[in-house]
């Protein structure tokens, strides 16, 4: 007697629906290349080499007195902080009455391989801070650093405390030895001298490799299945493509800067021990004595909380706040949670000190 095996009709239905969605996808959604990531109106007010300073146009009549400069990370681009109107970090701050500037590090080429921490901290960042101080007639400004941008901003704040009124460190890369992420494991075993000598700048392809080892099955398979399943959901698809486009666009990192970052942060862990030097000047975290707000994401798999939190305990500030959020590295800056919880808390803290 032959056994009868019946396939659940729901499975057939799902497969047919999924195939239809795949076929219809190009008709329903834009190609990532056609998407423009810049959302909130802004002007480029200053340029230095390949970097530039962006000033967002105010959207409220009442403005906080102290302007805020955001030092974005060295990986990917600043667009994630303004990825779409409902999830825009920048827009939210503008709505709260802050005067927001953004530092776009630009796209270094081979000739920028000798740019180092000194150029980024005492060159670009310092020049832009001076520009904002001058334009806004303020002696000090508020500074926010995100991810590796916070490593640079932390070094700047230690070397130039006289220019920083408030410092916000969002998922800062500080204590490399405590970092429990896959990225830190790769960084600890990297022959960075050889890489910089032979290749020059840290190539984007290497960064894409690092992304590929982070939850490879969820990020490499499941994410795209979800995308095609939800192809009719305009909001979901738009957000998905914007984040994907942002993820797929990372500039090279200047060789010398990358070398010192990997060695001093991940391999020798000098920053948290107050032993890191930039152009002969020691980065002493105790010299950071202004109000500091540190934001950490519990589920951060790029910069683990253990890597960021030591900043809170190492600085000399008396007025310091540490906030932990139940989200991830990107979720902290571009999600509904960031709009409902992270930004209102930051806005309130900053307004009280601006």
């Amino acid at each position, binding site marked *: 007697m032959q056994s009868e095996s019946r396939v659940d009709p729901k499975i057939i239905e799902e497969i047919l629906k999924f195939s239809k969605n795949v076929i219809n996808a190009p008709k329903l959604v834009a190609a990532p290349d056609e998407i423009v990531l810049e959302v909130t109106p802004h002007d480029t007010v200053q340029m230095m080499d390949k970097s530039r300073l962006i000033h967002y146009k105010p959207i409220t009549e009442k403005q906080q007195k102290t302007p805020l400069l955001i030092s974005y990370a060295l990986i990917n681009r600043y667009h994630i902080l303004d990825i779409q109107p409902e999830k825009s970090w920048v827009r939210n701050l503008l709505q709260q009455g802050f005067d927001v500037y953004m530092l776009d590090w630009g796209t270094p080429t081979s000739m920028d391989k000798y740019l180092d921490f000194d150029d980024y901290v005492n060159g670009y960042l310092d020049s832009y801070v001076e520009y904002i101080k001058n334009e806004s007639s303020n002696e000090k400004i508020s500074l926010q650093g995100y991810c590796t941008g916070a490593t640079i901003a932390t070094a700047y704040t230690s070397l130039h405390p006289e220019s920083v009124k408030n410092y916000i460190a969002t998922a800062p890369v500080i204590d490399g030895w405590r970092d429990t992420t896959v990225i830190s494991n790769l960084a600890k075993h*990297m022959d960075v001298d050889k890489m910089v000598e032979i290749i020059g700048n840290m190539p984007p392809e290497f960064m894409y490799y690092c992304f590929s080892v982070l939850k490879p099955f969820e990020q490499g398979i*499941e994410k795209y299945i979800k995308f095609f399943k939800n192809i009719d959901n305009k909001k979901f698809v738009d957000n998905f493509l914007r984040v994907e486009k942002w993820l797929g666009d990372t500039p090279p990192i200047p060789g010398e800067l990358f070398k010192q970052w990997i060695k001093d942060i991940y391999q020798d862990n000098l920053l948290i021990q107050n032993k890191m030097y930039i152009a002969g000047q020691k980065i002493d975290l105790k010299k950071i004595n202004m109000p500091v707000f540190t934001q950490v994401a519990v589920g951060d798999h790029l910069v683990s909380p253990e890597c960021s939190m030591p900043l809170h305990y190492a600085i000399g500030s008396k007025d310091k706040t540490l906030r932990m959020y139940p989200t991830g590295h990107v979720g902290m800056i571009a999600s509904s949670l960031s709009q409902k919880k992270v930004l209102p808390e930051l806005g309130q803290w900053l307004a009280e000190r601006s």
Partner: protein
Amino acid sequence: MQPEQPKDRLEPTKEMTDRFKHLSLFWTDIMHLMASKPQALTSIGPMRAFAANSKKISTELIEINEDLMEFNKYLTQYYKQLSEAWGIAQKKVNLKAPEVPQNAEQIEAFKRIWIDIFDNDFTELFDSEKFGENYGKLVSKELELTKHWNKIANVILQSVNLPSKEEIDEVYKEMHSLKKRVGKLELELKKREMRKNAK
């Protein structure tokens, strides 16, 4: 007394590769010396510089061979680590979900189990010392291979009077140093002006 174990004839030893390198270099050098006169006589134009530097290419090719063996060793280990992690994760999935899913809900649940177990196991691998160490060595060997290609390309570039990578690097370094000095002077001047205006 135990008899000496015979060495695996297929596995190249350091001694063997050194002997091969010496042999290749010896004949390359002799051939180069023997050929230098007729080469100088016959090579004209762009080929003059190329002929003079051609020995560098053979030296690089010999060294590429050595590095390629090392690279392959780490690459094999890299894929071995990935396939072992895959095998272990698949076994865990089989234990946790032994039944073949029959309906849409079961397929969804199976997929969730599969992704969670695979992501956990692979993250554990990528986080491990053995993976980090091997991957570091693999990248390092890959860079050395790139360096040999760079050197070969330099010979060709020099034969057509184009600057080598090192020469371009020197220019970049000089430009960087100049820009840095000018930038610092400009910033200092700006700060002084601001202080003056403030008074």
